[in-house]
């Protein structure tokens, strides 16, 4: 990676919504007093009559979206991931997913990179608890380009979706205009032969950095970006495992039940090889800058290179 261009993932979410709102008149947006942070403010500015603030009431936001979806609207509900997935979990389970209503939950501020707000605001379990619900699709895009493509797909797809979007400005990995999101396919970002590393969200760029570092040391890493955690593209991952014989997962999430859990389930069932889950080790986060925390929890390219090197030996 030579010149790194960074772009706000959540900013792109808000702008994409505002763009889609021009042609899709059924899109409505519900926020919980955080439109300036989730960036749904862009939609609000463009279509005030289709923007609803639920106030600080996440449960009401989700079930209100259920009601709106019954009238043919395509509701996007946004707030911080910890509240969207946690506070409103049962509304999402019983209200949205059981009847398979067309409600989209796009949660920003996921993972450790929430930073200074600390552990209360750092969702490290959201993928696990969303993934456990039948009928739910769970997506963790890697950069602003992918956020845009994912949101475009989500608006067309009929059914419940949970998308987690980072707070951070993320390096652009996918060139704008060239990337097409395929919900059924994980992306092999770099081919390799010594180990398969499956990742998504904001750790994809870190794993790519790690692979670059290791390449210079003669270690060949296959990087698989799996934005869709559910339904997971097991084929691509298992095929890669067959080639390398070793798997690691990396995510800005707890090592319990997230991408790591999903990959273990797939690999275990189809081609059992050792899988090492790298993420937040069953603990809460803390206050710090996003960079400090990524380094402390071992999720930067440099730290990951070290860790992966140990797995290959």
């Amino acid at each position, binding site marked *: 990676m030579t010149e790194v261009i960074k772009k706000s993932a959540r900013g792109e979410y808000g702008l994409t919504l505002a763009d889609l709102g021009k042609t899709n008149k059924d899109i*409505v947006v519900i926020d919980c007093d955080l439109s300036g942070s989730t960036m749904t403010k862009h939609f609000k500015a463009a279509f005030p009559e289709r923007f609803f603030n639920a106030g600080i009431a996440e449960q*009401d936001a989700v079930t209100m979206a*259920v*009601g709106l979806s019954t*009238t043919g609207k395509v509701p996007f509900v946004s707030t911080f991931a910890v509240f969207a997935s946690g506070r409103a979990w049962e509304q999402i389970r*019983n209200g949205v997913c059981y009847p398979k209503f067309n409600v989209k939950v796009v949660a920003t501020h996921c993972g450790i990179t929430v930073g200074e707000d600390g552990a209360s605001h750092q969702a490290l379990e959201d993928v696990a608890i969303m993934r456990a619900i039948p009928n739910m699709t769970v997506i963790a895009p890697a950069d602003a380009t992918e956020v845009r493509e994912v949101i475009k797909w989500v608006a067309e797809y009929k059914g419940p979706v949970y998308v987690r979007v980072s707070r951070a400005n993320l390096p652009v990995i996918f060139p704008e205009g060239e990337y097409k999101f395929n919900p059924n396919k994980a992306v092999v970002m770099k081919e390799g032969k010594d180990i398969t590393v499956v990742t998504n969200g904001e750790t994809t760029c870190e794993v790519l950095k790690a692979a670059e570092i290791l390449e210079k040391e003669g270690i060949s890493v296959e990087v698989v970006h799996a934005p869709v955690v559910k339904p997971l593209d097991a084929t691509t991952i298992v095929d890669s495992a067959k080639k390398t014989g070793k798997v690691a997962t990396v995510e800005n999430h707890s090592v319990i039940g997230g991408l790591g859990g999903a990959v273990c389930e797939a690999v275990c069932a189809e081609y059992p090889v050792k899988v090492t889950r790298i993420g937040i080790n069953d603990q809460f986060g803390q206050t710090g800058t996003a960079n400090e925390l990524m380094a402390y929890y071992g999720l930067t390219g440099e730290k990951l290179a070290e860790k992966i090197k140990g797995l290959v030996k």
Partner: protein
Amino acid sequence: MLKVLSKEEIEEIKTVAKKLRANIVRMIHNAQSGHPGGSLSAIDILTVLYTKVMKQYPDWDKNPDFENRDRFVLSKGHASAAIYSILAHCGYFPEADLLEYRKFGTKLQGHPCCTKLKGIEVSTGSLGQGLSIACGMALGLKLDKKDSKVFALMGDGELQEGSIWEAAMNAAHYKLNNLIGIVDRNRLQIDGNTEDVMAIGDAGAKFAAFGWNVIEIDGHDIEAIYEALEKGKESTDKPTVIIANTVKGKGVSFMENQAGWHGKAPNDEQLAQALEELK
């Protein structure tokens, strides 16, 4: 001028409600599970709503005017026997199917499931969600400039759920005058009297404080139910809530005002007695 029911109509509704009470008891007896108390307390309200107030289409999405129907949300989803009995009466499905209630493979699930039964707008059963869902429906209908109304029936114990009050705030904030909430105020919940378990107090005053029109009635007075529902439809700027004071287990002497009959099925003897009383 609000419409009023004729004496004949009132008698007809009473006859239908009595039949539905008998069906509710039969269904729960046959399933050997279910919630008789809160089904019997709500059935007069549902009978008036479905036979005289709501614009509804038993042929469901086959009807060309389907999109303009009024909506009903059974927020107290455990009263499933009540909603199934009125839907069958209205012709949504054959009355004979009522005995499938709570059996394996049935469209008549323990709590209403909208993907299995036409006539059910949304799946409910988890208390506290229905009013908020109804708010979303009412908002969506307003966006589409439809004059359809949304009715949501809540239990009084359900008012203990905080999410009800999030929705109460929402409905007043968005001036959802097309939303009519109904509280089946039977004063009992599983563990006993609502005021002992977690006092509801003056439910009407609470909704009024949240910015709602409040109408308090005897929830078994057919004329009063009808007038309250019709009045609710006329609101111009606020949501309306009807506090319907009811008797849990109404119509079956040994079930009346007994918390124990919240979620219990009658045995053969009790069924026979109940049906005798409901003749």
